[in-house]
C-alpha cells in the first residue's frame, strides 16, 4: 500500500476566490479514498487539478515519487489516471468496442483495417471484468446509463489506469447496477489500483472507503481511516463554521396567502410527485445536493422544460402547458443558475440586457417604438438599486463584468419586470461577500413587498439566514420540510443526505427500506 499519488499543499483560486486551499493528500494503491463535502467545498476543483484540466497556483503533486504536473487531460490519461464522471464521455453513435478503442485500434492486414475480431474479444473480456455481458457490437445509445458507466470503467481498465476517480457514479443507477459497481470496485482494489470515490451517499462512502477525506470551503478538514467516522461525524465536519456571512434582518413576516402552488409534478427519471406552496411575503428555500433535481424542477415550473403530470397554479389560476412567456405574464421571474449561457446576452450592452424582459413596457405605438431615454433611465435606476459596479451601461458589454455584477444584471433584468414570484437558482454563486449581502437585502425587500421568493441554493447557511421555510430535495423528490424553528444545519444536511432519523431511509430505487437499517 504505497502512496501512489501525493498532493502537497495544493492551492487554486478563481477570480480571487480560493477554491482549493493548501490541500495535502495521499492516494494509495489498493485503497479507496472517499472524498466528501458540500457543493462548492472544492472537490471538483481538486479533481480537475489531478486531471490536468486546471493548473495549481501553488503546491505540487507527485506520482510514484516523481513530479506530476499535467498540462492537459491527455497528460493525466497517459500517466494512468482515469475519470469516471457523472457526465459520460461516450460517443452515442459508436459501438461499445469502438468507444473503448477509439484512439488505439489494433490493426490487421495489409490495409491496416481495424481488427474487428480482436477488439470484440478484448472488449468482451473487459466487459466481463466489470460484470457486463453485452455484445461488444452494441451501439452505446442502446444501453442503459448504468451499463454506460460500466463501459467507461472498462475503458479506464483498458487504458491501464492505475488510479481511477469516481465522481458521483451512482446517481442514475438502479440498486442492482450499484451493487455491481461496488463489486467491481472491490476487484480493482484487490488488483492494486488506487480509487477515489466522490459521492453524497454517505453510507456508500463509509462502506467502500479505506480512508475518508472531508473538504469544506476549499480546505481539508478531516483525513482519517474510514473506521474513525460515523455518519454523524461526517456531516458535522462538512458543516463546520463557515465564513462569517451577515444576513439582513427580515423586515416582514410571511403571510399564508398562497401565491404559487405546485401540485403533483412528475417527470419520469427526473422528478417525482412534487407538491408545495409558496406564499405571499415568503422566502422559501430549496436545498439539496447537486443532482437532486432542484434546477430541473425550477425549469419545469417556469415552463422551459416539460413535465408529464401535475399542475402549476398562480394565485389560484392554473397555468396550462407552462412556457416562459406565460410564466412572465403571470408575474413569475426566473434567475437561472448559469448566467453566461441562459441569463445574459454576453456581447450586448448592460442596458439592453437589463431591459430585455420589459421591452414592451418602454415602448409605444403601433410598431412598439422604444423610448430610449425612459428605458435607459429605468435600467440605470435598477442598476443603482443593486449597486452595480460597471462602466457606462449603454456601452459596456455584459461580458466585461465580474461574476457578481453579471448576476446583478440578471437580477436587475427581472426586477424591472416587477414580478410577484421570484425563482432564483443559485443566485449568489461565484459572488463576493459584499455583493451577496446586497442580494440578500433585495430578497428581503421583495418578500416584504408581498412577493414570494423561491431560492435554490447549495449554501445551507445562506438559506438558514434568509428563508422562512426550507424544502429539501433528494433524488428528484421532496424529502423533507423545515420551518424556521426547526432550522438546524446538521439536521437539514442529514435530510439532504437521506440520513435523518425522522424520515425512513430510501434505497436507490426510491423504495422505502425497513426502518432500523441505518448506520
Amino acid at each position, binding site marked *: 500500500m504505497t502512496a501512489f499519488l501525493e498532493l502537497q499543499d495544493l492551492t487554486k483560486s478563481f477570480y480571487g476566490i480560493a477554491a482549493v486551499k493548501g490541500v495535502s493528500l495521499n492516494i494509495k494503491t489498493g485503497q479507496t479514498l472517499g472524498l466528501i463535502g458540500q457543493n462548492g467545498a472544492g472537490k471538483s476543483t481538486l479533481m480537475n487539478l489531478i486531471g490536468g484540466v486546471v493548473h495549481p497556483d501553488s503546491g505540487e503533486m507527485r506520482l510514484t515519487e516523481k513530479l506530476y504536473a499535467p498540462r492537459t487531460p491527455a497528460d493525466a490519461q497517459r500517466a494512468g489516471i482515469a475519470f469516471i464522471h457523472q457526465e459520460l464521455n461516450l460517443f452515442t453513435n459508436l459501438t461499445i468496442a469502438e468507444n473503448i478503442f477509439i484512439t488505439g485500434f489494433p490493426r490487421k492486414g495489409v490495409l491496416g483495417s481495424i481488427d474487428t475480431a480482436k477488439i470484440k474479444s478484448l472488449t468482451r473480456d473487459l466487459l466481463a471484468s466489470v460484470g457486463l455481458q453485452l455484445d461488444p457490437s452494441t451501439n452505446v445509445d442502446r444501453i442503459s446509463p448504468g451499463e454506460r458507466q460500466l463501459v467507461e470503467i472498462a475503458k479506464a481498465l483498458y487504458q491501464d489506469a492505475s488510479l481511477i476517480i469516481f465522481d458521483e457514479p451512482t446517481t442514475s443507477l438502479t440498486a442492482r447496477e450499484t451493487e455491481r459497481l461496488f463489486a467491481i470496485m472491490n476487484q480493482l482494489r484487490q488488483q492494486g489500483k488506487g480509487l477515489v470515490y466522490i459521492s453524497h451517499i454517505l453510507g456508500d462512502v463509509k462502506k467502500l472507503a479505506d480512508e475518508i477525506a472531508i473538504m469544506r470551503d476549499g480546505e481539508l478538514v478531516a483525513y482519517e481511516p474510514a473506521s474513525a467516522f460515523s455518519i454523524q461525524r461526517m456531516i458535522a465536519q462538512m458543516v463546520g463554521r463557515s465564513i462569517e456571512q451577515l444576513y439582513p434582518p427580515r423586515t416582514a413576516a410571511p403571510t399564508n396567502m398562497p401565491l404559487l402552488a405546485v401540485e403533483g409534478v412528475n417527470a419520469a427519471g427526473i422528478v417525482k410527485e412534487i407538491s408545495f406552496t409558496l406564499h405571499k411575503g415568503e422566502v422559501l428555500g430549496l436545498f439539496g445536493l447537486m443532482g437532486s433535481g432542484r434546477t430541473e424542477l425550477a425549469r419545469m415550473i417556469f415552463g422551459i422544460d416539460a413535465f408529464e403530470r401535475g399542475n402549476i397554479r398562480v394565485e389560484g389560476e392554473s397555468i396550462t402547458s407552462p412556457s416562459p412567456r406565460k410564466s412572465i405574464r403571470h408575474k413569475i421571474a426566473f434567475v437561472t443558475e448559469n448566467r453566461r449561457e441562459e441569463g445574459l446576452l454576453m456581447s450586448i450592452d448592460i442596458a439592453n440586457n437589463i431591459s430585455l424582459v420589459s421591452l414592451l413596457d418602454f415602448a409605444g405605438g403601433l410598431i412598439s417604438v422604444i423610448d430610449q431615454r425612459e428605458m435607459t433611465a429605468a435600467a440605470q435606476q435598477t442598476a443603482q438599486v443593486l449597486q452595480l459596479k460597471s462602466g457606462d451601461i449603454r456601452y*459596456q*458589454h455584459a461580458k466585461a463584468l465580474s461574476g457578481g455584477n453579471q448576476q446583478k444584471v440578471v437580477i436587475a433584468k427581472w426586477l424591472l419586470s416587477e414580478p410577484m414570484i421570484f425563482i432564483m437558482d443559485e443566485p449568489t454563486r461565484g459572488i463576493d461577500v459584499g455583493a451577496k449581502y446586497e442580494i440578500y437585502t433585495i430578497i428581503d425587500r421583495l418578500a416584504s413587498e408581498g412577493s414570494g421568493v423561491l431560492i435554490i441554493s447549495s449554501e445551507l447557511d445562506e438559506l438558514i439566514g434568509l428563508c422562512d421555510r426550507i424544502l429539501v430535495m433528494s433524488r428528484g423528490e421532496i424529502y423533507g420540510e423545515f420551518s424556521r424553528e426547526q432550522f438546524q444545519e446538521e439536521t437539514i444536511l442529514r435530510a439532504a443526505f437521506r440520513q435523518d432519523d425522522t424520515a425512513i431511509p430510501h434505497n436507490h430505487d426510491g423504495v422505502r427500506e425497513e426502518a432500523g437499517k441505518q448506520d
Partner: protein
Amino acid sequence: MTTLDQRQRAKTTSSDSSVKRFAQSFLLSDYFVLYLTLIFFVTAAVFFPTLGTPGNISNQLQNMWPLLAIAISQTFVLILGGIDLSVGSTMGFTSVVGAIVMAQTLDPSFFDRSPLWGTIFMRPEGGIMAGSEWATLVGILVMLALGTLIGFLNGFAITRFNLAPFMVTLVSSTFFAGFALWLTQSRNISGLPEAFLTLGKGDIISIYLGPKLTSDIARRDILPFITYPFVISVGLAIAAQFLLSRTVFGRRMFSIGTNRRASEISGIPSRSVITRVYMLSGFCAAVASVMYSARLGIGQPSLGGGNLLLDIIGAAVIGGTSLFGGKGSVRGTFFGVAFFVLLLNILNAMRLSPFVIDAVKGVIILLAALIDITRTRLINREQRS
C-alpha cells in the same frame, strides 16, 4: 496573403505604439468601410480616370440602390443568425408574377406553352390587369405580397419544423426559381405598363453638368440623381435602420441572434420574430425585384440568379454584419454595398472577365471574414480592460 503577414508582424511589435493604436481604432471604427471605400475610390480614380467622371459616378450610384434593398434583407436575416439563400429566386419569381399581372400584351409564340396560357392570367391581350389603369399598382402590390409570403413559408419551415435555414432556403430557392421558369417557359415577359417603367428609369431630380451651349441638351448628358429607386431604397434603408435600432422588434432580433436560449427564457417569442424576419427578407427581395424589373422593363425569371447571393453576403459582411448573428447595422451594410459597387466598377474598368471578377470577390470575402474575426478579438480585449 501578404496583408496577413504584415498584420501578423504588426501584432508582434512589443509596445502599443501610437501607430498600432491608430490602426486599431481605424479598424474598429464604425466608418471603417466608408473610409476604405473613399480611399479606394481616390486611389483607383488616379489609375482609371473614367472612374471619376460624373457619368460614371451617377451610373454606379444607380447600381447601388437595388443592391442595397436586397442587402438589407440579408442583413436582417444574418443578424438573427440565419441565412436566406432564396432571395435571388424570390426576386425572379416575383418579377415574373408581377409581369404576368401587369402585362399589356403577351406574345403567343413565346408563352403558349405556359401553364397559365389561355386562362385569365395570360392571354394575347396581356395579363389579368391588362388595360386597367391600376395595373402597375396592383402588380407591385402582388409582388410585395408574394415576396412576403415566400418569406413566411421559409420562416414557418424553420421555426415549426426546426430545419436548418440553409437547407430550407436552398430548397425554396430551387423551387421558386423552377416555378418562375415553368410559368414563363424561361422567356422574359415584356409589354409592361409605362407607369411601371418610369419607376425604373424615371428621375425626380437630375443634373446636367457642363456649359449650356444650346437650349437642347442631349438626353444622355442629363444625369439621373434622385430617381425612384433611390427614393425607394433609401426610404427602405431608413425604415430598416429605424426598425433595428428603435423598436422592440429590432432589440428582439439582436437578442435572438446573440443567444436564442437566453432570449426565450427572458420571454422573447423567438418563433414569431424569426418568422417575421424572413417575411421581411422576402419583402425586401420583392422590393429589389420591383426596382430591377422596372429598370430592365421586363419580368425576368432568371433575375437574382448567378452570384448575386455572394455579392450580398459579401457586402453585408464587409459592412460589419457577423455571420454568427447578433451583430450588424443598416449603415454598415450601406457602406458595404458602396464598397462592393466600387469594387465591381474598378474590376470592370480593368476589363477582367466576369468569372475572374467573381474570384476576386471571393478573396475579398475571405479577407472580410478574417477582418471580422480580428475585430471581434480586438473588441473582446478592449472590453476586458
